[in-house]
């Protein structure tokens, strides 16, 4: 155990020194996102899908679209469920079994960013009011954990939803019936972009790598919509942010979000 904590301390100092110098260990500026590739349509059996690589992080996400029963109090809206999983092949520390606290937080933050932005107009996902609606299931699998899974999973989910080809159902006598040979585009209202920032000392970095992630004092995920408004937040980590830091993080999230958004929007072309 002793060796590990000495190494952790050394690594922490190295990361903090490079951040203080304005140039990170991997050569990035403080507000620079790692190389991002978005490959939509990689799982033809899913209605929508995307493989996203964000630096050394890789996520494969599929969207399944099925008739679903509406929640009792929202019979006029479709359902949306977003999950995330870190299968054990993603990292030596990832374990099979029930999801950890961190994985549950990951799934919920990704879900919230998409849900609260109203990316999908759920009122258009109704087959028969109060009886049958369309359920959109977005399942994220982290294949390689290179840090900042919040943004990688969010980008993969958004791209997979944008690439979606939705089947069409009509109400039969007692159950919805698939209309063969028909499909439609998903009812997209806005494109949310999640931007996760970490604080190391007085410095804020965007899109922390795994090495940096281990050294963060605190982190903040801000999701913005196409209008540049903020639609979801999640603060994490052991320490906090000053109000000034929170303001500058919001500015950063809006400007970085605007740079990333067209990269996700391109996934529409995979339909």
């Amino acid at each position, binding site marked *: 155990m002793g060796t590990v904590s000495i190494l952790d301390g050394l690594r922490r100092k190295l990361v903090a020194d490079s951040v203080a110098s304005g140039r990170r260990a991997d050569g990035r500026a403080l507000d620079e996102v790692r190389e991002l590739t978005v490959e939509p349509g990689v*799982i033809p*059996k899913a209605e929508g899908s995307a493989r996203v690589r964000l630096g050394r992080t890789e996520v494969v996400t*599929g969207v399944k679209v099925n008739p679903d029963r509406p929640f009792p109090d929202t019979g006029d809206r479709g359902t949306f469920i977003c999950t995330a999983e870190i*299968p054990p*092949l993603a990292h030596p520390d990832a374990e099979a079994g029930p999801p950890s606290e961190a994985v549950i937080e990951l799934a919920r933050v990704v879900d919230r960013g998409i849900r609260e932005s109203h990316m999908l107009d759920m009122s258009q996902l109704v087959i028969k009011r109060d009886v049958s609606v369309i359920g959109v299931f977005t399942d994220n699998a982290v294949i*390689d954990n290179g840090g900042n899974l919040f943004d990688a999973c969010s980008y993969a989910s958004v791209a997979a939803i944008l690439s979606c080809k939705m089947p069409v159902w009509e109400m039969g006598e007692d159950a919805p019936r698939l209309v063969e040979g028909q499909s439609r585009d998903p009812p997209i209202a806005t494109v949310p972009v999640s931007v996760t920032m970490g604080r190391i000392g007085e410095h804020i970095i965007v899109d922390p790598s795994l090495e940096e992630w281990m050294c963060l004092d605190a982190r903040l995920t801000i999701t913005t919509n196409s209008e540049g408004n903020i639609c979801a937040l999640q603060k994490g980590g052991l320490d906090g942010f000053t109000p000034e830091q929170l303001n500058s993080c919001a500015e950063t999230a809006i400007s970085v979000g605007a740079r990333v958004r067209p990269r996700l929007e391109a996934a529409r072309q995979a339909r």
Partner: protein
Amino acid sequence: MGGRDTDMVLLDANGIRCDGRRIDEPRRIMIKAGVLHNANGSAYIEFGDNKIVAGVFGPRDVHPKHQSNAETGILRVRYHMQPYSVTERKRPAPSRREIEISKVIKEALLPAVMLERFPRTAVDVFVEILQADGGSRCAALDAAAVALADAGIPMRDMVSACAAGKVADTIVLDINNEEDQAGQADMPVAIMPNSGKVTLLQLDGVLTRDEYRRCIETGIAGCKIVYDIQKRALAERHFSGAGQ
């Protein structure tokens, strides 16, 4: 087997199957070794419409400790399907089917892996099915074996797998999803190609004694085709594109 009634022509008069293949022709197989950063070894396989990634960790400490063996290392395998890998969304928790497949894959690999060199440790093989088609256990096993070799785990032999089956009263190689649903028998086979030993063998369906013999022969022939592709994937990864 399904043996389901269907209008589909599984085998036409010219001996061509529903996806255009001959009876002794496997689907398209592509293997790439070394696709993950954090695993000690890894491989990605596309086998027909299967898309599968395998990662290997170890030899490493065993947790929980009571699983460890003072005489030898242990091998653990997890075969897991992503919810979006199949037509109807699959619930994310491991099913009984996945647990059984994990076990037969482990037992197919065990004879090849020299675990006795690493007492008290574990070698973990994790397989994620990103898209499933017929024959996913064979494809998963093929990727797992390449990932083990990619990790530099000492092995006596490669392990190569391919299914054979019976479709329209004919023994065919590598049955696909439609043939699995509507065909008469599905027999996954794995061999250690140098020793020739069969390390995985299952069967769903009914075969005569003669069909049984021919089905095994056909499966083994498929395994040998896979073996060449596995070797090429490892050569491309470790001998900078030198091919064979």
